[in-house]
């Protein structure tokens, strides 16, 4: 054991001397690794930072399960109902003439509120409306809600830019408007806006608050109003509800629970994964690209190390021969060069994560305007320890692989061939 340790110590000494006696070569090999890892840290930090940021606002502003009446869902045709055994062809079948109403919503709500897996439930009425802006009309959406229940699910309080949620309760004809929409309509808190329903009814409402969730797709079209008021302007009764939003205690359970609810209630129950499928795929692809780019950079660095080590071994052929003649075994010689490549890898990786950290920090301080799409004033960058550890592991693995083949070759050198050649 001690023999083995002292032998390794000796290989370490020789490796150090080799590295130090060719500083330029060592530094260039190291910088290859540094560059690869630095880029990896900066890229992964930025990519996952953006992903997490958008995921955060998307997830907090969308329900875990959304129950609604999907009137476009294909249904069995009349022909199939009366003639179930026949060979029926119904071309270009249209939806039935029915409203988006959820029948028996109050019973559904009762059941849902008793379910222990569910954190909160909020009924809602959604309708397309036109916002009148002088002579022109802007297409948008109005949601009739119980504003405090909505707040429990989506934390609306923290999204308010002007006004208070309670003002909506106090003012029946009030409306809380998305910031993008308000800007387009040139409205501020306290102003009045005229809306037109699809059925052609108009109503003048007072803007009691302005919210900003941070996603253009919501802030530019949506307003919240009192449920009873929306029922009135749509000329519907008190039981009229079009959507039920649900937040779960454990979001990962959404898929099975949604399936269960859909089976029980017959209405469409959509989980957040399905609703945000494109977004989740996008995140996934961005992560793959980041890893692919970093991996490529590291492979290039690996080739650099491979080359330099090969060159060193070529130049040290005589030294290797004499070491073997003196009694160094193949494994001793191999470890001399393996150590060199691992030292290059470790130093390169440590410097790399430092560079990566500095780059990430600079990026996180750089001003950036998210425009209408997302409300951002600088890049969100992740500084997770996980990525720094991954970087070091990446660097060491690449250099170990790159160093292995030349080192093995060095260990196998036949001293006689070299000594005789002189």
């Amino acid at each position, binding site marked *: 054991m001690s023999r083995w340790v002292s032998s390794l110590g000796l290989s370490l000494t020789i490796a150090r001397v080799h590295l130090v006696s060719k500083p330029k070569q060592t530094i260039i090999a190291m910088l290859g690794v540094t560059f690869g890892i630095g880029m990896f840290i900066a890229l992964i930090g930025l990519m996952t930072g953006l992903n997490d940021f958008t995921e955060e606002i998307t997830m907090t502003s969308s329900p875990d399960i959304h129950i609604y009446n999907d009137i476009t869902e294909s249904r069995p045709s009349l022909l199939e109902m009366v003639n179930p055994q026949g060979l029926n062809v119904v071309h270009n079948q249209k939806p039935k003439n029915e409203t988006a109403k959820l029948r028996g919503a109050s019973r559904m709500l009762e059941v849902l509120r008793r379910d222990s897996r569910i954190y909160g439930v909020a009924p809602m009425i959604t309708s397309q409306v036109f916002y009148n802006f002088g002579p022109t009309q802007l297409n948008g959406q109005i949601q009739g809600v119980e504003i405090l229940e909505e707040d429990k699910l989506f934390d609306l309080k923290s999204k308010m830019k002007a006004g208070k949620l309670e003002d909506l309760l106090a003012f029946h004809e009030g409306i809380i408007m998305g910031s993008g929409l308000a800007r387009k309509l040139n409205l501020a808190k306290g102003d009045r806006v005229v809306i037109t329903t699809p059925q052609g009814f108009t109503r003048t409402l007072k803007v009691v608050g302005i919210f900003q969730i941070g996603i253009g797709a919501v802030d530019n079209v949506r307003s919240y109003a009192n449920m009873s008021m929306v029922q009135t302007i749509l000329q519907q009764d008190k039981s009229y509800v079009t959507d039920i939003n649900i937040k779960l205690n454990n979001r990962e359970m959404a898929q099975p629970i949604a399936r269960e609810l859909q089976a029980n209630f017959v209405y469409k129950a959509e989980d957040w994964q399905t609703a945000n499928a494109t977004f989740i795929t996008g995140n996934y692809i961005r992560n793959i690209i980041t890893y692919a780019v970093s991996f490529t950079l590291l492979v290039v660095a690996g080739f650099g190390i491979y080359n330099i080590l090969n060159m060193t071994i070529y130049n040290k052929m005589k*030294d290797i021969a004499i070491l*073997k003649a*003196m009694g160094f*075994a193949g494994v001793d010689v191999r470890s001399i060069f393996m150590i060199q490549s691992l030292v290059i890898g470790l130093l390169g990786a440590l410097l790399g994560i430092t560079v990566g950290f500095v780059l990430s920090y600079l990026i996180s301080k750089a001003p950036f305007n998210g425009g209408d799409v997302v409300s951002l004033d600088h890049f969100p960058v992740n500084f997770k320890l996980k990525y720094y550890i991954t970087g070091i592991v990446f660097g060491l693995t690449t250099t170990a692989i790159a160093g292995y083949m030349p080192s093995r070759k060095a260990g196998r050198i036949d001293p006689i061939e070299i*000594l005789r050649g002189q």
Partner: protein
Amino acid sequence: MTVLRTCGITKYFYDPEKFQVLKNISMEVQRGEFLSLVGKSGCGKSTLMYVLSTMDTDFEGELEIAGENLTRRSQNYLAAFRNRHIGFVFQFHYLLPEFTVLQNVMLPALKLGELSKAEIENRAIEKLQLLGMAEHARKKTNKLSGGQQQRVAIARALINNPDVLMGDEPTGNLDSHNSRIVFDIFRELTTVHKQTIIAVTHDEEFARQTDRVVEMSDGRIL
């Protein structure tokens, strides 16, 4: 006492064509003997030395050093054996250029790992003194003359007190003055320190003054 014994050593080269380079070589070397190996160029002296030094294992016959049979041993075993029992000096010094004289001499002992670093250093200085090189201990090896470098290489070969010191034309690259110095050192090592030495040489003068001259011709010992 026999330090080295061979029995029927035979070796072939197959490239470019099958060619028997060593033919049934049997010899014995006694402790403290100073033996020179001579013969025409190409007769197989170096090849025999590589076999004796355990670096070349591709031969038939038996090889025994310090009472140990070395045929069919693993490469790792032979490396450790060389480290402890054999010192080798070449025509060229083969010192490691990045290390000092002292470090070069210490290397085989560090590899052996039986003594502390301080003890090894003391012993290295001792060996350098024996070769009159102690005052150059801290120099880089490329700051020395050819003769001085060869003396450092001899000190390095002696550091683990080997049973046999082997040399393949150890004075082949030296002028007559330096050859003389190296020869005198060898002479002193064998008489005073009972060091066994086998040296290949082309120098008749050198050979004549050794204890025994073994002549080779065409792969055979005459």
